[in-house]
């Protein structure tokens, strides 16, 4: 599974619970079915998009740094040193 997909999943769940937190804090009401579904879809969607983009960017950066670190620690081959 890619970093973007993982981030989107986590972001979607976080967005869902942000909506519930907003309801508990009195910022929005989940009493009517239509607006509640709108809030939930917007929360999950926005969370998934933000989480996906963040996950992808962070994953790419981490892989790049890991490549650099691997290249620094890998010893050069004896043949190439003799030349």
């Amino acid at each position: 599974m890619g970093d973007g997909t993982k981030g989107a999943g986590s972001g979607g769940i976080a967005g869902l619970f942000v909506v519930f937190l907003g309801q508990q804090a009195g910022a929005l009401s989940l009493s009517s079915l239509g607006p509640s579904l709108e809030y939930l879809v917007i929360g999950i969607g926005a969370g998934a998009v933000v989480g996906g983009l963040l996950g992808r960017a962070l994953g790419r950066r981490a892989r790049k740094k890991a490549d650099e670190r691997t290249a620094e620690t890998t010893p050069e081959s004896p043949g190439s040193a003799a030349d």
Partner: protein
Amino acid sequence: MLFALVGLFLLPIAAAAPVGSAAVPRATTSGAPSVTAVVTVEGQPTASATGVASAVSVSLTGPLHVLYTWQASGAAPTAPVTITTARLQLYVFGAALNSVEIDITNPQPAINGTIAMVADFTYAHYVIGGVYQMEATLIAAGGVTVFTEWFYLHLTTPYDLNAATVVAGVLIVWEAYTIAELGSVRAVLRNREPARPRSSAPKEPEK
């Protein structure tokens, strides 16, 4: 998992009737006796609580005292009305989650009257904080609904904290940590390591 979570919340309300958005009092049946009423919760009138921002704010630390002050209306001479039941309902996802009802003992026809109700939601104060749409109803003899009012109620807990907010907060932090961990170089290097065999050395066959 995400769909299961959403489905879990929506399953009990699939057959629920939609909630009216207007908070305007109305007589629901044509030809039925007409009644106007003022509903107060903890002494605060609910008529102007038509939205989330203007919701009546009450503490959930004790039972709510709701007062219906009603008056028969219509063309003079005003016909007396026999109110038999007062009802208060709390809505979540378009479904009546909780209903408090008072049946008047020995109801008599009258031009006006007051009905006091105690609605106790404290048993669910771990999960029920926040803003909810409420429906206040007066029912006359014969089961005719003569008055309905929709209004918003903000049930407050100390610091707006209860079990539901704590669980939601912890889950949000956990998911944010999961996203942040995608940027960990150590995690990437750990994933690149070849899988190690579980047992260190194969056992020699016994002679």
